[in-house]
């Protein structure tokens, strides 16, 4: 029932493996492949090899269904890096030699501002309506607030409508719900790769939908002006290839600002991609979860909702959440904006399974309403802190002579460590990733983002100064082959001042 691509060599345009939840670790498709071949009753697409049918009888020791085993595989593989990290989390006082997490894309720079802002609970008189059965697509007042918020921050030409808003518990659920209501099982979405790998899992678990990668190159060729540039030509080719292989593509996923590249699409580019989608009657899901995390003013971000006259408004669906822009990934709040009523209704029909607490809905509405605080306090401070952290890490990387992409948006830098791989293979990439982990710093490797070139890593910089500094020190140790040196927090201090002297880069002054 779920069409899972199996052999990479046979299906080069499809993504075999998932990236883990929170893209903490690197995954290989092999595990999933094994699962598939162990379960011959699992319907695989035509181009897949046939498993060993006799294995059916021997596999009934498991309590899980065939799909259950594959579903479990996602959890187990995600656990790898995550579990190691959680068993040994860095803590300044209690566990200074613990693992520094530079793999999870979370903004840890503004908890001080947020915890002061979010904490007041709902007033007593509001509680009864909030603790009882909610309207499934989100409380009315919250949807109104979301519409106002997006109209303002996305600079939409006309006010957005609350009835086009659906609220649920995070963008993961949105991907899942959209995949389910837009595609049949085995159909596919196009996605430019490298991309935020967890989407594979989101669209697959319930939806049984696969992703067809539009592979981007680091090398700048032809008319490209930058590495990993997405062009309509590449989109066309990937689509053609998928069609040729009999994979039915129903939509295109765009992440803007892009994760992990930090790329921002210009209005012209956006329009080109949307026109391409319109020509092929593809839905476009635009994930704008980092839209307010553009800390470089000159980057000039444009939401798809700011475009005058969308090419195909009925097939354009925008996602946003507070996870990144408000640094609250644990709050589980995500929202869909679509002019397509059928899609909104269908997604809302699934909200019974993806609802969020009424009390949290109230707190969200309160937060989003406060444009003054957001404009005058939160955003300026958040951007300043992000920029300082970015500047520091970029300086460190420059000092090490490491090429990287970082374009003033998001929480991460896309780092080229190809020269540290003895061989350009994902096996070597994995080994390097493990060396980082062994040296107590967790990064995400390119494989987790379906990058086709081995050796790229995503490095998250949105953390407090001392952790960032220690993390970078451990990264450097690994790259300079000195990873055996035991960690000494004191040396970090001297390192920090050393950096200030040598590179002139100041570590971010954050709380």
């Amino acid at each position, binding site marked *: 029932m779920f069409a899972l691509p199996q052999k990479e060599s046979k299906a080069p345009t499809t993504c075999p493996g998932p990236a883990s939840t929170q893209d903490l670790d690197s995954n290989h498709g092999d595990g999933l492949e094994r699962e598939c071949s162990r379960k011959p009753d699992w319907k695989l697409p035509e181009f897949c090899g046939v498993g060993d049918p006799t294995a059916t009888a021997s596999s009934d020791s498991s309590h899980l269904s065939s799909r259950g085993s594959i579903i479990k595989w996602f959890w187990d593989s995600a656990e790898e890096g995550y579990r190691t990290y959680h068993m040994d989390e860095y803590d300044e006082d209690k566990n200074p030699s613990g693992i520094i997490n530079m793999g999870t894309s979370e903004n840890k720079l503004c908890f001080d501002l947020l*915890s002061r802002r979010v904490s007041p609970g709902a007033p007593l008189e509001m509680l009864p309506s909030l603790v009882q059965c909610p309207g499934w697509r989100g409380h009315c007042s919250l949807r109104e607030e979301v519409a106002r918020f997006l109209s303002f921050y996305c600079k939409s030409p006309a006010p957005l409508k609350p009835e086009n808003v659906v609220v649920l518990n995070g963008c*993961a659920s949105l991907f899942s719900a959209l995949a389910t209501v837009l595609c049949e099982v085995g159909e596919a979405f196009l996605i430019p790769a490298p991309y935020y790998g967890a989407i594979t899992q989101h669209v697959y678990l319930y939806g049984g939908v696969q992703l067809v990668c539009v592979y981007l190159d680091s090398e700048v060729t032809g008319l490209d002006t930058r590495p990993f540039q997405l062009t309509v030509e590449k989109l066309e080719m990937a689509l053609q290839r998928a069609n040729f292989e009999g994979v039915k593509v129903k939509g295109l996923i765009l992440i803007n600002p892009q994760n992990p590249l930090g790329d921002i699409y210009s209005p012209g580019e956006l329009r080109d991609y949307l026109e391409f989608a319109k020509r092929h009657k593809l839905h476009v899901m635009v994930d704008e979860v980092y839209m307010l995390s553009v800390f470089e003013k000159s980057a000039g971000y444009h939401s798809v909702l700011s475009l005058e006259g969308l090419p195909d408004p009925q097939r354009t669906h925008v996602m946003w959440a507070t996870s990144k822009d408000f640094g609250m990934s*644990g709050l589980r709040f995500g929202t869909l904006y679509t002019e397509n009523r059928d899609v909104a209704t269908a997604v809302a029909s699934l909200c019974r*399974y993806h609802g969020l607490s009424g009390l949290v809905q109230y707190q969200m509405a309160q937060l989003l309403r406060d444009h003054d605080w957001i404009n005058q306090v939160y955003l300026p401070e958040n951007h300043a802190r992000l920029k300082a952290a970015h500047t520091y890490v970029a300086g460190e990387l420059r000092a090490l002579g490491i090429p990287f992409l970082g374009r003033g948006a998001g929480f991460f830098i896309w780092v080229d460590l190809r020269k540290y791989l003895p061989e350009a293979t994902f096996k070597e990439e994995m080994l390097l990733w493990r060396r980082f982990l062994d040296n107590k710093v967790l990064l995400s490797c390119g494989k987790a983002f379906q990058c086709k070139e081995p050796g790229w890593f995503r490095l998250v910089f949105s953390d407090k100064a001392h952790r960032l500094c220690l993390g970078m020190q451990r990264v450097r140790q690994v790259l300079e082959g000195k990873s055996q040196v035991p960690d000494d927090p004191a040396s970090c201090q001297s390192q920090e001042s050393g950096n200030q002297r040598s590179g002139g880069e100041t570590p971010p002054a954050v709380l």
Partner: protein
Amino acid sequence: MSHRLGTFRMPSAQMRGQGLRNQRIHTHLMEMMLHLKQTIEKNLMHLTTRHLQQDLVLEEQRHSQAASEQEALLGRLMYQLVNLLQSGAMGGLGLQPSCPSLDVRRDVRGGQWAQSSRQPDWPVHQLSDLEATFVSQHLSSRGIDISALYHSSFQDYKIYQRDKYHEDKNTMGFINLGLSENKLCLDLMTERLSQSDMNYIEDALLQYPDWRGQPFLREEVARFLTYYCKVPDQLDPENVVVLNGCSSVFSTLAMVLCDPGEAFLIPAPFYGGFAFSACLYSKVELILVHLDSEVTDANPHPFQLTVDKLEQALLEARLTGKKVRGLILINPQNPLGDVYSRDSLQEYLEFAKKYHLHVIIDEIYMLSVFDEFITFHSVLSMESLPDPSRTHVIWGTSKDFGISGFRFGVLYTHNREVASAVSSFGYLHGISGIAQHKLCRLLQDREWIDKVYLPTYRSRLQIAHGYMTKKLEALGIPFLNRGSGLYIWMNLKMYLDPCTFEEELLLHRRFLDNKLILSRGRTYMCKEPGWFRITFADKPLLLKQAMHRFYQVLSEQKQDLIMKQLENAQRE
């Protein structure tokens, strides 16, 4: 499909005469047939396997298809054979026509869930004709089904949302006694929730959580369940998975325990949400174990669940080629309000073990047992579970604490494999860290729960239940007088003429016309028309108003019945 199920079901009148002995005979007979079928299946499997090894992929698909067709044909033949044998065993009654109620197309929702396995992957297409107007060029076919199913299932709820009763502002609005919500203790809950320990925020609550639920909450849930379920040994937090609601827990269990088209057994009538969840995402079928209202030797209590009934339903389903993976139990039962005795529970679990079935047991009303003479036995309280690795318990705060808006559901399973697989869905069913903190504080406050909340809650339930039962008695309406849950299961058959599901629906609409929402037996897959569930966990004033409307509708209905009978008599 409905007919296939239907032919098997012995009309209750004949069943009664036969007693238990014949049931045993025919169970044995069916077991034999099942064995026979399995042997043949194995042979077919060998054939298929050989083909697989020899031939190309395409070839293989053709053959396996042919094989499965052959298998289906064989299944049908066997089926007819068993039918014949069965009727012989039952004393030569001959082949019974299907239950009249199951003949009506709209009434076979049970049948709709139970689809043939040869159907395509997403077998709910027929559902869209419930609301044939819902078409969209943009949605996938399952997207259309999901929307249609949602619309048809929540129609009443939507009209209620638009026009709610309010004692001052909207006295003409809808009163909803169809939804099982506990509105008796909102005052206590809001007071507790507004205490200062609730409003707490720290970094960890705002960051990516452990997708199984925050460790502090899982630990508290384990302690809470250990205490309130009277578990012999301390429960392990590692066996707890926390998701945003019990529907989500069930949905994920269905995903990881069944492949599409496989099935769960469930005694009917049952909470309709299971049917909704089974079909929405997981495409799992429900095989109904129909229970009878009439009391007989074989059925000492109305709607009593027995192992014989379970066994019969299971074997029947297997003979039709269904792969049954588990059994769903609701305890305290919704809508019946039954609480299973320890012995019954043990029997059901032993039955499941015998057939290697998972048991999903929903104990969401476990603290809502208000009759002090009734003891609730959680499945977790058993000294030794017959099959711990196949026993999965669901609980949530929606009913017992009346906070369905919190979206909180718990899975407790000894099976780590199942817990891990369900955890993969954590991302899609996560709860806010802020809410997790509040829930943890709430569950922690044993003092308040034991001394304030539960005594008040139960005494209010008792009073409301007493009021409602007295009203029903006065109207001469038969009902199940149980001491648990937030609702009463009552029989309005005498207001239906003829006693059909069409008439049941018309009566339901009549209640709606009078701004009263109840839920009718059809939505619980009850096989007998005329049953309704009425919620009593609401404020006295509202109940009074509701019962007034209830009385009015029934009076009108009675008048109409008399008129109708008169007309009929005159025509004759």
